[in-house]
């Protein structure tokens, strides 16, 4: 039922002529003849008036095609791995998200014009290299606890003292002539201006990924030209990023002024020195993402909580301290993250309705059509679901405002799962107002 992480290869070609632009992925590169055939079969379909969007091999491998702006074709190929037939739906959803994210990455760095009107293929090839760092990050998906590229919700960290950091972000952005500002702690958004939240959810996720990448290098500040795939695909903005403390970065999106030098020397200390202790408290929240005032039940191993209205999420995996000796060992931390993602995909592709805004691609909508048929087969909408496996018990529930996904230790009786889940949801929401 649950798939293993297979390796994924990404191919990019020009849509009209099939010239390979780049290929990324950890596994051995596919031979040129195979790439040619993959393009050829898609082209053949096009000639017959059909769009080939997805296929599955006998060994369980998947191929997903998608053409963007009639100009660039992206193909994702994933190896079969251990997944049985039941896993294909989740995998297809994942690959479709991946292609969408990769395209958004390309627009973010290069802008839509350069990608939509290819004049010089060799130049485009060279320019596309600038996107590799971000694309590789998407493909590897290695940072634990960051689920945004999958959920298209912004990974958040709820600071212990939200008002103070919010004021600092608002004031800092305003002084930098910007309406878009955010504070990222441990790769997650701890506070952002109102306008930042009005960016498209995919943009918020993508910008967070870019900031994480820049922050991980340890550099002190950046001035990066970025195009917003939905809001401003043809005009570049400047993303200014300042490392306040290692692990805490503040960013603003701005126009021609202020210069990086001026913003750094004139504004950073003025707005952030007074709250440096508050920032340190945010850093101690760490991977838990929830302030200390929220106490989680000891039998909860991991959780992902999504606010459906604001498109934000918090997630954490607890390192268990209470574990009766003699019981089978609990899954490791990294396995918990993997299980949490799988359970999310399992629930979303089968039971829970997704927000309509997220089904941006025709392909994804078609794919979802089959899920919806299944869901519509019932006289009511599923609100809760659970799954019991050898490793853990999982419980998902949704309300009009939230979706919660929990991994719970196997020793908890199945009939008690619902109570654990509803209690966890109300505990977090009542304390943090998330």
């Amino acid at each position, binding site marked *: 039922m649950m798939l293993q992480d297979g390796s994924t290869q990404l191919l990019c070609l020009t849509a009209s002529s099939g010239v390979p632009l780049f290929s990324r992925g950890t596994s051995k590169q596919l031979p040129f003849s195979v790439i040619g055939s993959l393009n050829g079969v898609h082209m053949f379909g096009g000639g017959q008036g059909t769009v080939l969007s997805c296929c599955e091999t006998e060994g369980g491998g998947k191929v997903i095609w998608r053409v963007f702006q009639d100009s660039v074709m992206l193909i994702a190929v994933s190896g079969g791995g251990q997944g049985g037939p039941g896993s294909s739906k989740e995998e297809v959803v994942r690959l479709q998200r991946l292609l969408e994210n990769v395209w958004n990455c390309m627009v973010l760095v290069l802008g839509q014009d350069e990608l939509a009107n290819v004049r010089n293929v060799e130049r485009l090839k060279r320019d596309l290299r600038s996107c590799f760092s971000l694309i590789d990050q998407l493909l590897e998906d290695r940072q634990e606890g960051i689920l945004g590229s999958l959920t298209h919700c912004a990974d958040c960290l709820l600071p212990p003292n939200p008002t103070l950091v919010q004021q600092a972000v608002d004031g800092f952005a305003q002084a930098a002539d910007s309406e878009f500002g955010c504070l990222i702690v441990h790769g997650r958004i701890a506070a952002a201006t109102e306008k930042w939240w009005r960016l498209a959810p995919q943009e918020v996720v993508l910008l967070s990924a870019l900031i994480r990448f820049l922050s991980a290098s340890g550099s002190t500040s950046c001035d990066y030209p970025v195009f917003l795939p939905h809001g401003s695909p043809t005009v570049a903005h400047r993303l200014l990023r300042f490392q306040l403390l290692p692990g805490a970065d503040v960013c603003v999106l701005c126009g021609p002024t202020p210069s*990086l030098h001026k913003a750094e020397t004139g504004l*950073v200390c003025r707005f952030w020195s007074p709250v440096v202790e508050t920032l340190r408290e945010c850093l101690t929240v760490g991977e838990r993402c929830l302030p200390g005032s929220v106490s989680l039940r000891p039998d909860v191993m991991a959780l992902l909580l999504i606010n459906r209205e604001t498109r934000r999420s918090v997630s954490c995996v607890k390192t268990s301290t209470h574990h009766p000796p003699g019981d089978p060992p609990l899954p490791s931390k990294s396995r918990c993250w993997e299980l949490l993602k799988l359970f999310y995909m399992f629930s979303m592709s089968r039971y829970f309705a997704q927000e309509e805004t997220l089904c941006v691609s025709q392909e994804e909508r078609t794919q979802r059509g089959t899920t919806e048929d299944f869901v519509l087969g019932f006289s009511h909408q599923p609100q809760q679901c659970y799954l019991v496996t050898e490793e853990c018990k999982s419980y998902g529930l949704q309300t009009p405002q939230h979706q919660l996904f929990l991994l719970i230790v196997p020793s908890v009786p199945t009939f008690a799962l619902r109570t654990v889940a509803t209690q966890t949801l109300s505990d977090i929401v009542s304390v943090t107002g998330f």
Partner: protein
Amino acid sequence: MAQVPLHGSLIVSDWHRCKDSKEYFCKILHKKRRKNFGLLESPVMPPQAAVDTVHYKIFITGKSGVGKTALAARLAGLNIPNIHHETTGIETTVAYWPVKLRESGRVLFFRLQLWDCGENALRRFDHLLPSCKEQVDAVLFLFSFTDRTSFDDLSNQITKWSGPSVSRVVKLVVGTKFDLFMHCDVAERDVRDFQATWNLPVLRTGGEVSDGLGDVAPLLNCLAENLWHQDCVTASQRFQEETVTVL
């Protein structure tokens, strides 16, 4: 062109090996690695031994792929990226470095902010280069020992930085990937000729990062010495000018 100070004439070279430097160097280290400082932090000495910090902005320039980002990371003691990725905007990195002045014995913390920008990004976006040049104190011209064209292009680059508006900018040349002698494309003689023509210090870097301080000390000390020298020259010129006006 400004006179280049003699190596070790202004500051104590290899000071990081001396015993009396330990209390200063330990402030930039954490668990034997270089400490990463955010913008709200800086090395703090106890009040009785307070030390001044001098700030400098240094721009790293050179052909795409010569190792600008890697050099900045090396000098600041950060992880050097193992795959080359184009830098698609400006990235700055701060390196703190304690220095002892030879004459007065005074200790200073140099805060060297290294500005690094991908060549493609510079070409695509007009506003990046002026931003890098704004109030810059020094330029590092990079070439790679494994890429002849990057060496041949140096003269072009340096000429661009020779106007009167940038005459006070300290200029140094750094050859990267010096360890890859199997693929070396630039002969020692060419480097000597180049040095004679331009009268600029040429430093070499490359290879594995060993003890963290030893392999960056020559470059950081050379940079600090040149910056300090330039400051002294500027200060004395200003003094002379003022004296002339008074007379």
